[in-house]
């Protein structure tokens, strides 16, 4: 029997973790990436990676609490078994990364240091300066290079994945990819295909994401029949630095180390921030959320910053929305030791020293909770059955999705420092499942399939490329169309969403798609043609843009990152205790009704002409019952009291 091969698309944390684990299991890997894998977007992750640790454990923390924080932070939209399993693996994953040489910050005694991140009360986050993602990525890149030397891994860097190859039964038998230097299109037989291509921030024009995050690999797999889950859940990070080319992330670790968010109480106070006295500063997160303060989950922090600027008119500047993120009260040496990397970024791009002057920040599109739908095998203990081929497998047999491109772990909102752990976890756990699949492949290996299967796929993609290349240089510029798409998506499908606006945006996206289909190609060269590669990626943004808008339009509720003011539950306004209680009862009734209707995953499938078809799937909430997500909101205690009473009532004998 021919030796098995697996194709992995994407060489960030997830793709590299899967690749090294597959190689360790004796499976050869072809690794595809648009960029040398060491330059993948994972290197932009700054703050750290979460797990329960020896220190937090002694303060009452546990794997279960990490699991609970993640599920609660995600507003209960994630299936619970994979999240539970991830939380249990998290400490082991950090140990492994430590063994691989990641330069985690240390305590004076030489243990790994940890800091606090949003959505938890424990200091759970291990970190390497403020470039933790880069350091984790490098450790995995080094391990994969080891396997490259032994011949088990072949890298195809500067290759663009064009789509899967499916046989007559619908099973994936490989993929087609194009060398974006020499422009050769080639079909690769593979016994399993792992999509690890990350997020799709470029749909929004400018975001915190890297330039390779076009979403094209996800879109091409979706267009080939893969289901897409929870597309409308897109994380907008509270703190980014606006720029003409990119919105640069200012890590949550700045707040984890004590950074405070504020605006002057006087709108557009002309004084320099250092001269504004404490009493004239509005620390709005700390006032509204006394328990979590500046470390409320991202969706909440983002909405509060957005509202303070748009609704309350308290933006620091008039022309441009921004608030202060202040770390100037922290000693310089401590800042350099723990946050050096991100403060340097701010200083380099803004020309202002954030150790001396508060930073000006505003929210920016950052992460996609949604992604390719994938499966899991639930274990008797409520986790997942490691080694099951169902884990991370999409609805197309033989195609797996891991990392940011899957929809599995973060529900309606991701907690800070949970993405790195989810990426590595899904990468490590997909491998044994694939090994199980390969041991008993239906219909033999990919190499044993008829040659015509691969030749046909190759011919189809070669023809599509030739068609693009032969386009006229007269017509609309794809880069400008991309800017327009970004503006529409940013306006309609980010922090606050309105149904009429979403409907209008959908029509606008359809019109843009038609224009993009006729866009000009101004480069006719058959050598390193970025123009064609970009135009093709742009075309593939539309199916995803449509499913995001349609999913958001359909979902008439507020959950995590998806917020519609007209669907928001009313706040408790009464002063009289009895009336407050009545309002809270009413609030809880509506909360329960809403969960009954909307606590479901959105599943999009690609219909005729790329129109998304939506359906809904029940969420496995069997381990932690859903509860109101208040984070100690000032005035929210009465709701918690009523809710607790109801839960006790449920549990009590009747």
């Amino acid at each position, binding site marked *: 029997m021919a030796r098995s091969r697996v194709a992995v698309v994407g060489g960030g944390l997830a793709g590299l973790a899967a690749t090294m684990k597959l190689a360790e299991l004796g499976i050869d890997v072809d690794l595809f990436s648009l960029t040398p894998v060491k330059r993948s977007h994972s*290197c932009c992750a700054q703050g750290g990676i979460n797990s329960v640790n020896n220190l937090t454990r002694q303060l009452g923390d546990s794997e279960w609490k990490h699991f609970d924080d993640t599920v609660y932070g995600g507003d209960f939209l994630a299936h619970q078994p994979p999240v539970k399993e991830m939380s249990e693996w998290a400490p082991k994953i950090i140990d492994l990364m430590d063994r691989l040489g990641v330069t985690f910050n240390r305590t004076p005694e030489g243990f790994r240091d940890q800091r606090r991140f949003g959505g938890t009360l424990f200091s759970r986050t291990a970190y390497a300066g403020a470039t933790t993602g880069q350091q984790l990525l490098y450790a995995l890149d080094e391990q994969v290079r080891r396997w490259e030397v032994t011949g088990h891994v072949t890298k195809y860097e500067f290759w663009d994945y064009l789509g899967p190859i499916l046989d007559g039964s619908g099973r994936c038998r490989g993929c087609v990819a194009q060398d974006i230097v020499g422009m050769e299109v080639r079909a690769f037989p593979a016994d399993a295909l792992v999509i690890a291509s990350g997020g799709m921030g470029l749909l929004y024009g400018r975001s915190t994401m890297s330039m390779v995050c076009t979403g094209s690999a996800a879109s091409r797999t979706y267009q080939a029949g893969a289901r897409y889950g929870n597309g409308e859940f897109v994380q907008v990070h509270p703190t980014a630095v606006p720029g003409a080319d990119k919105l640069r992330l200012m890590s949550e670790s700045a707040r984890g180390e004590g950074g405070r968010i504020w605006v002057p109480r006087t709108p557009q106070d002309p004084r320099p921030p250092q001269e504004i006295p404490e009493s004239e500063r509005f620390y709005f997160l700390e006032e509204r959320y006394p328990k979590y303060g500046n470390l409320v989950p991202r969706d909440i922090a983002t909405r509060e910053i957005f509202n303070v600027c748009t609704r309350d008119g308290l933006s620091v500047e008039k022309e441009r929305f921004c608030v202060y993120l202040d770390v100037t009260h922290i000693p310089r040496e401590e800042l350099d030791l723990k946050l050096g990397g991100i403060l340097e970024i701010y200083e380099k791009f803004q020309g202002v020293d954030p150790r001396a002057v508060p930073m000006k920040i505003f929210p920016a599109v950052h992460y996609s909770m949604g992604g390719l739908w994938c499966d899991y095998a639930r274990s008797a203990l409520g986790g997942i059955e490691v080694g099951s081929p169902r884990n991370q497998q999409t609805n197309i047999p033989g195609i797996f999705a891991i990392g940011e491109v899957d929809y599995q772990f973060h529900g309606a909102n991701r907690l800070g420092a949970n993405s790195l752990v989810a990426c590595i976890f899904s990468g490590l756990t997909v491998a044994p499942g694939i090994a199980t699949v390969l041991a008993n492949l239906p219909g033999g290996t990919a190499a044993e399939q008829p040659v015509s299967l691969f030749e046909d796929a190759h011919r189809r993609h070669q023809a599509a490329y030739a068609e693009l290349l032969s386009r006229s240089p007269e017509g609309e510029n794809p880069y400008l169309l991309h800017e327009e798409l970004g503006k529409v998506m940013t306006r309609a499908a980010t922090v606050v969403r309105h149904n009429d606006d979403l409907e209008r945006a959908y029509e606008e996206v359809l019109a843009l798609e038609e224009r993009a289909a006729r866009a000009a190609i101004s480069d006719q060269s058959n050598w390193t043609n970025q123009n064609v590669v970009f135009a093709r990626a742009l075309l593939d943004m539309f199916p995803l843009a449509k499913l995001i808008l349609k999913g958001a339009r359909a979902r008439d509720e507020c959950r995590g990152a998806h917020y519609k003011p007209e669907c928001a539950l009313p706040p408790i306004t009464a002063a009289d205790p009895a009336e407050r209680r009545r309002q809270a009862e009413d609030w809880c009734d509506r909360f329960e009704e809403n969960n009954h209707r909307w606590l479901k995953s959105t599943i999009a499938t690609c219909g005729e002409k790329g129109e998304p078809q939506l359906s809904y799937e029940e969420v496995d909430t069997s381990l932690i019952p859903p509860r109101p997500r208040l984070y100690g909101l000032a005035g929210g205690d009465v709701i918690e009291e009523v809710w607790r009473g109801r839960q006790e009532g449920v549990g009590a004998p009747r």
Partner: protein
Amino acid sequence: MMNQPSNVQNQRTFDVVILRQDGPGRPSYWERFRVPYEPDMNGISVLQRIAALGRNAEGKRVAPVVWDCNCLEEVCGACTMVVNGRVRQACTALVDRLLEDDPRQIELRPMGKFPVIRDLIVDRTRMFETLKKVQAWVPVDSYLHMGPGPRQSQENQQLAYVLSKCMTCGCCLEACPQYLKIELTRKEGEDDAAFAAREKEAFNRSFMGAAAISQIDLFNRHPTGMMNAVERLDALIAEGGIQVCGNAQNCVRVCPKDIPLTTSIARAGRAATFHVLKQWLDR
């Protein structure tokens, strides 16, 4: 100070001259572009504007300039090029500062020590091949759970962290007088594998450069990494090793991550001397 184009009133512009090349072995040529000024621009937003314009300064439609970039935060290393004569990442090259060098224009060139693929993109395969040669990794037994890694002092972590921030961008090599360009052309009938093997051999014989020496320093001080110190030191003193360094100290001056490369080279040099002595004594 700024050019004033005839068609747009009150729109400040500046020029960008780019050394272009259509492909390997093709002649290079300068092309001029005129870009509308915006606040807070950098090398990448300039190239993005040029792509969106699609025309050169004479208004002629030209093939878009090709360049490499990814993170735009100076952590990935992709967009390294020569900006106003200095090797650096284009993303952190702020236009306002660049126009202080020369208010009329900004000059962009590809790095000169690596083969040009097209326009501003060069082939840095050699850097990644060198990382294989020096075994820049921690050789763990397996990826199974074996408990935490070795405990380390804060001092050692700080030192390792600085070295570990190397993005394999190539600035140090561009600036190094001893690091010379290797550009092979394919022989007739030579297939991919044969060409790659010939290229790898050429890379291995040539100077490894500061980035790789510093990685040897990094992994040889890691408590597990040092178990393979001998193999790395063998690579360090082999052909193309540390003896080629001419101590010009340009590398440390251009490193965007402030890696103390000359300190690394000095430490590696001492280790190499002990290694050679020990080899001699053990004979």
